[in-house]
């Protein structure tokens, strides 16, 4: 069988791989292209004529989405929650990751193993108790409530990522620093943190994106429009009976800009972190 397949000439494989890539590329580009162009179309063009390029380009959709749909408020809220969550979680996780990979102490291996299990607890199981806990703490419709809920998945994930990164990093420089009279904490601050900066940046990007992409907690933990996250704000377009496609696509385009920018700026970190095999997909 293998011998038989081996007789297929190389050229066939080359043509096949071009066809496959072209097909997949169309599937990737098609929705993004339609989202981007529809954002600039007038209503008639969206509903009744199928055009590939906006015939009457307009900024009305952006105007609507910014001035009547309060997208800027949702963006601000998401930015605040993502920013706070990322800064807290990175600090906590770097400390924990360092401790669990570099220090020897009783109970360490159980804790290190626990990180993976905690990370894999199904989100749907956490949904109901998290909702009740946040209400009990009177944190519904607050940034704090959203930060806490997002931390529940970000801390185990980021700790796991940092552990993976630190393990791939040689401990020798750090040990040299210890011999030269550094204590553990100054070695962590002056040696380990600078050396693992790429890993820390990767972790920070993943957490920021994770919060930006989070929908379920944002949906159940906030009712109040002043604290609404962009994910809920955008999907509300679809929950009404009348679809406002134009503003929705303009809003989607605005909402994806931050994640795309971060990704482009940090692509080399992300690809490395992705290879760490620890990323949700």
């Amino acid at each position: 069988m293998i011998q038989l397949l081996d007789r297929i000439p190389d050229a066939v494989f080359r043509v096949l791989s071009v066809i496959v890539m072209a097909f997949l590329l169309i599937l990737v580009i098609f929705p993004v292209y339609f989202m981007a162009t529809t954002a600039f179309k007038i209503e008639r063009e969206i509903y009744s004529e199928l055009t590939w390029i906006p015939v009457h380009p307009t900024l009305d959709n952006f105007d609507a989405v910014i001035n009547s749909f309060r997208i800027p408020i949702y963006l601000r809220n998401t930015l605040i929650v993502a920013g706070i969550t990322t800064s807290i979680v990175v600090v906590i996780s770097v400390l924990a990751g360092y401790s669990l990979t570099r220090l020897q102490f009783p109970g360490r291996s159980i804790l290190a193993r626990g990180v993976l299990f905690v990370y894999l607890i199904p989100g749907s199981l956490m949904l109901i108790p998290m909702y009740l806990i946040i209400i009990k703490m009177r944190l519904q419709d607050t940034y704090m409530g959203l930060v806490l809920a997002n931390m529940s998945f970000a801390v185990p994930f980021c700790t796991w990522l940092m552990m993976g990164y630190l393990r791939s990093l040689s401990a020798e420089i750090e040990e040299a620093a210890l011999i030269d009279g550094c204590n553990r904490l100054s070695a962590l601050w002056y040696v380990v943190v600078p050396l693992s900066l790429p890993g820390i940046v990767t972790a920070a990007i993943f957490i920021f994106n994770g919060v930006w992409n989070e929908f379920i907690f944002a949906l159940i933990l906030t009712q109040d429009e002043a604290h609404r996250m962009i994910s809920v704000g955008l999907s509300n377009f679809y929950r009404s009976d009348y679809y406002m496609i134009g503003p929705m696509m303009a809003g989607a385009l605005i909402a994806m800009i931050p994640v795309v920018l971060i990704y482009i700026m940090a692509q080399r970190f992300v690809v490395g972190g992705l290879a760490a095999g620890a990323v949700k997909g």
Partner: protein
Amino acid sequence: MSQQSVMGQAVAQPIPRKKKSSLRANEAWLGWLLVLPALIVVLGMVGYPFIEAIRISFTDRMIGRGPGHWVGLKNYAYVLTWPSFDKMVLRTIAFTIAAVSVKTVVGLILACALNQPFRGRNILRGTFMIPWILPSYIAVLVWKWIFDGQTGVLNQILMNWSLIEKNIPFLARQWSAIGLLIFVMVWKGYPFYALTFLAGMQTISPELYDAAKVDGAGRFGRFWYITLPSLRPVMGVVILLSTIWTMNTLDIPLLLTGGGPSDYTEVFPLLTYHLALQNFRLGEGAAVPILMLPIIAILVYAVATYMDKEANA
């Protein structure tokens, strides 16, 4: 980093190092001190909710009606005797297997294609990341509009090309809704597979391929005898982890189909959501994911043992 940590994450185990005993006593409290903040968060925001979920599943708690009463196994009995519960479990498993296997095959093919040297490869690789970096809610909103039965782009295109006579409500028909839900999950997920597989492929030594060429292996033979076996550790971890994530995906089905038409796309996270947050029956809602825990526990156990096995191999 990329080269080592593909294997590194899969196989990493703490490297035992000899330390002086005076250092070790000091390290014990420092170790716990540094772990403490993370431990508090995990115990408070994961451990406590986990126990709460189990406790709530034994009560008749409803939203806005106080703490509820102990009802024993009544919620479990209700969920288990519910006419379509077994169908829901099978449906969840079928969706997961379908999505994961398509993601694996497409990811593998794309990784092979991108592993060839050609001009513009980096740009192409970046472009294929788009579905993965795009937030789910945006991806789903756009696809949902494309498939829409009234004004959807797909219907408009098919009409323009005279392939159909009148609009088809794709998301309101059983089989197209099932197919499209799997499609969107695959669309969102396969780039992750492709890029991790690709990173794994790039760690394979070119000498192996040269040796195989000398032995007369063609392109397919080299893929079968070298690429696949070398990728096994990476593939194993990615597939197992992704199976768990795919099974637990709530936002894509919730936004795309909401479980409909009828309940043909109602997977278990969605059932929890519907019972708890639409019908306000928190106890019964909590019982659903707990009933699914054995399946997830087996998968988690498989991930953990697989990683250990690769570590010791």
